[in-house]
């Protein structure tokens, strides 16, 4: 729980004839994190059989085509069943299967698209003719008058002004018969001798003339009637085609789903093999397996290939030269906190996983700032609602449910300690104290708690350096041993001078602070000395002097600011009481306490506090964790553990 799962490096030497069987088992087991071993292949071998990347691409192309077919049939991809991985489908066989089903669906969907296009054209013609419905002249006469040349059609609105500018040198009439948001139905007319100019201008302004098939004869209103009949027929036809596609969708659903899964498996297998190292008669497979499952891994592999050679390399924490995949192993209840840790950074393999600490300190800090029994319980109930996934609209926030429950319960606990129920301080007795009446005390306690947490952070940082055998960092870093001694001696000095009488002169702390401060000041140089780097001083002496001075100054400043930062925990506890009091004052301004409006305002105020202040306190808590606490010991940057599997099993 305090460290990521222990991993073992694995190298498999597999005879070529067993490679597919072994790969299948690796995918089936879902515990093998593959490393790219293709660089181990010699060019000669790659030249003869290195076509696995192309195969993987081909499978991916077929997978995409099946997706498209499913989309055309409005089929959603379903969850992959918990069955063993089947063998890879031969590429030709897969291609044939995809071609066949694609062709069948394409025929129906092409017909549907054509009919929809026809419907669109008919509706377009109708739209253009409707403004002319009142004219009792045959359409032919309207379009080809004796003395005029005219064009009836649709033009994009932005082109209209330009069209008129382009015709300024000839006489013309331009009528906008109907205007929509983007286009207008227009009638352009001029003298017959200018027909060429009118045509060119209309075409270049993208005025699309009305095109009516020969069958549509008569006055505009007669043609409109014909068009409406045709529209109804086309609509019927479209409905029939949709029904056919629905039927096809039901009939082919299982086949398509199964084909998709088989293709995906084939693609994954081909992808995996493409990253194996290939020698003349064998394949080299390299990767990582959780040590706890190594035995199971070996047993299953030996069952599928008698000749497989398995070499394992147990990996001791502390070596930082290899990027080992990181799989966190926290109890389910801590998942929400693990997400918070991963949002900051994924722990490195040799680093302490701070999830457990976060699971304790996050709700505590939140509860201390938001202590109220009623509001805390409401928040916990809201968290439970999120986690239950009962409200579809809140599905996206479900992963936060557990975190909010924990924060809500902690706020409830502190509510009892502060004696606060929905902002009312007269109902419950305060089991500990009322923040508003003990402002200085609660601020002091908050700083004390901060000092404790920061000290824990320092110690964890020192442990991490110890495990990583980074002695320079362990001894000299501002967050290492000398940093901790400096921090504590400064605290001791301040306590001796201002708070308590010590049995020895406080100047002793001053001396320790000076020595540790000098070490911190030269931490970079000492670190280089321990690691054997040269030169010890980078840059000129002047620059070095300024830099070391400011580094010490920055460290001292951060110790102070980080410690004082926790004062906000006490400040928010007080502000919370103050905000609740404001709600009651506002309610009293609106109505007397006997009236229902008073309680409506109180309820609305409480909801506001839960939503608004809850959010702010949440952000402040996160800041204290991420900025003040984590920076002392946690650097992150670990690689995600992504085992080979058809169903992804990686850590979130």
């Amino acid at each position, binding site marked *: 729980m305090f460290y990521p799962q222990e991993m073992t490096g694995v190298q498999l030497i597999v005879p070529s004839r067993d490679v597919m069987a072994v790969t299948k088992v690796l995918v089936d087991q879902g515990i093998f994190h593959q490393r790219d071993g293709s660089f181990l292949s010699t060019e000669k071998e790659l030249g003869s059989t290195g076509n696995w990347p192309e195969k993987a691409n081909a499978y991916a192309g077929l997978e995409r085509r099946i997706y498209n077919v499913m989309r055309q049939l409005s089929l959603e991809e379903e969850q992959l069943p918990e069955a063993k991985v089947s063998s890879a489908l031969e590429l030709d066989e897969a291609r044939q299967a995809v071609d066949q089903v694609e062709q069948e669906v394409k025929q129906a969907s092409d017909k549907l698209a054509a009919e929809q296009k026809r419907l669109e054209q008919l509706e377009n013609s109708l739209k253009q003719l409707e403004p002319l419905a009142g004219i009792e002249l045959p359409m032919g006469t309207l379009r080809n008058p004796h003395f005029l040349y005219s064009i009836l059609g*649709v033009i*994009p609105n*932005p082109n209209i002004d*330009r069209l008129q500018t382009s015709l300024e040198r000839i006489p013309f009439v331009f009528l906008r018969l109907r205007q929509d948001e983007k286009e207008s139905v227009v009638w352009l007319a001029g003298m017959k001798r200018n027909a060429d100019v009118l045509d*060119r201008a209309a*075409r*270049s302004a993208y005025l*699309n003339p009305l095109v009516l098939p020969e069958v549509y004869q008569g006055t505009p209103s007669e043609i409109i009637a014909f068009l409406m009949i045709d529209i109804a027929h086309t609509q019927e036809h479209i409905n029939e085609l949709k029904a056919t596609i629905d039927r096809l969708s039901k009939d082919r659903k299982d086949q398509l789903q199964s084909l998709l899964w088989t293709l995906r498996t084939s693609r994954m297998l081909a992808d995996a093999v493409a990253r194996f190292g290939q020698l003349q008669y064998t394949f080299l497979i390299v990767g990582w397996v959780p040590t706890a499952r190594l035995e199971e891994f070996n047993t299953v592999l030996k069952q599928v290939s008698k000749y497989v050679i398995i070499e394992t390399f147990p990996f001791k924490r502390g070596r930082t030269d290899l990027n080992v995949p990181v799989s966190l192993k926290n109890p389910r209840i801590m998942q929400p906190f693990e997400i918070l840790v991963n949002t900051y950074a994924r722990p490195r393999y040799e680093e302490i996983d701070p999830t457990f600490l976060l699971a304790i300190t996050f709700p505590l800090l939140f509860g201390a700032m938001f202590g109220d029994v009623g509001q805390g319980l409401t928040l916990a109930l809201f968290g439970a609602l999120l986690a239950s996934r009962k409200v579809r609209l809140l599905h996206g926030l479900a992963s936060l449910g557990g975190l909010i429950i924990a924060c809500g319960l902690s706020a409830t606990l502190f509510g009892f300690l502060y004696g606060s129920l929905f902002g009312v301080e007269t109902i419950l007795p305060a089991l500990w104290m009322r923040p508003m009446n003990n402002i200085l005390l609660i601020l002091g306690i908050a700083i004390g708690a901060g000092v404790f947490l920061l000290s824990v952070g320092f110690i964890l940082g020192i442990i991490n350096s110890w495990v990583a055998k980074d002695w320079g960092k362990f001894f000299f870093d501002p967050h290492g041993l000398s940093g901790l001694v400096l921090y504590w001696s400064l605290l001791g000095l301040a306590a001796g001078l201002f708070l308590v009488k010590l049995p020895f002169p406080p100047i002793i702390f001053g001396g320790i602070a000076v020595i540790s401060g000098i070490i911190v000041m030269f931490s970079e140089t000492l670190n280089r000395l321990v690691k054997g780097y040269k030169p010890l001083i980078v840059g000129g002496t002047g620059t070095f002097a300024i830099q070391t001075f400011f580094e010490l100054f920055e460290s001292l400043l951060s110790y102070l600011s980080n410690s004082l930062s926790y004062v906000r925990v006490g400040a928010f506890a007080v502000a919370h009481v103050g905000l609740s009091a404001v709600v009651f004052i506002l309610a009293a301004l609106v109505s007397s306490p006997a009236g229902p409006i008073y309680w409506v305002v109180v309820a609305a105020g409480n909801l506001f506090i839960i939503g608004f202040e809850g959010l702010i306190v949440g952000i402040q808590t996160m800041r204290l964790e991420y900025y003040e606490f984590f920076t002392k010991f946690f650097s992150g940057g670990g690689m995600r553990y992504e085992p080979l599997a058809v169903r992804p099993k990686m850590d979130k």
Partner: protein
Amino acid sequence: MSSGVSGYAAINTRVRAKYASLLTPQDIAAMSEASDYPTLIDHLRHSRYSDYLAMVQEADLSPRRAVFQIKTLMADTYVSVIQASPAHTRDLLDRFYRRFEVDNLKAVLRGILSKAPWDQVRYVLFPFGDQTILPAEAMLESGSVMSAIELLNGTPYYDTLSHAMERYTAEQSLFPLEVALDLFYWRALWNEVGHLPNQDREQALRIIGSLLDMNNLMWAIRYRVYHHLSEEELINYTLPFGYRVRDDDVCSLAGGADIAQLLNRIYPNLHDVDALLHEPRQGLPLLEIQLQHRVADQCRGAFSGYPFTVGLPLAFLVLNEYEIQDLTVLIEAKSSRIPSERFHPYLLNQAEASLLA
């Protein structure tokens, strides 16, 4: 004004730092002296493009791929500039960035007609990454212009293209689609400029208007000289706004006015316009380079004077684009072993250096 200063503080610093990292005319001159394509790439590996070139193995770094990689830096620059700019300017800057998407769209349509495979087309496209709304690969795989345009349903390009499809169907040429796209894009960009507050609008008009001036003039000249289009077509295929070029200028150009006279009146410092128009095949690209010089001057001007406007990021983006244009010329010239006297006039930075000399 104070909100302008505070809003632009971050982007101003960022853009000035990036501006300082642009290649100098001396850098371009040194690169143009490179003996061959590998030497040029070696030069680039020591420039700000090194990380982007390092993403591709040396053996795979074909000229096309090299151009693609250096454009990737420009794409990242656009994204970071847009993100750091004040919220009220982001729509304009994003629209400005979409110029390359319009070019990609045209390239995909041409790819469909020439039946080019995706692997050939992908590196011709501007590397938008996941910022693009074009389903370029699916469009290419659809195999026909009509189906490709149907795939654009829901994007801002769909209405324009589906309306212009009628002409494509009748004429079987991409010309009407491309012109419609250009007109749609520049109108939309101009509208975005109109939405800016006063001081921003003034600076944006200066830079975007200068680009539009150049486009309008080059469109009008090319349509007249190469395509022999009529007056009314020419007017409909150009736009009635810009910075220096008035609609009357475009209309008189369409009506047959003397091109050289008109250009010399608008830009008194242009060189040898008559000679350039006499041999339009070679001359018009050089004329365009001269007009680009005017735009580049406008952009450099934005770096002096009151800096807290959208003019600064716009100017930097244009100058960055011109640098890439120069590098593209160099890469193509060096990989095709074209002698320096033939490609030098097409270099913006280099040409300016020689002009100054």
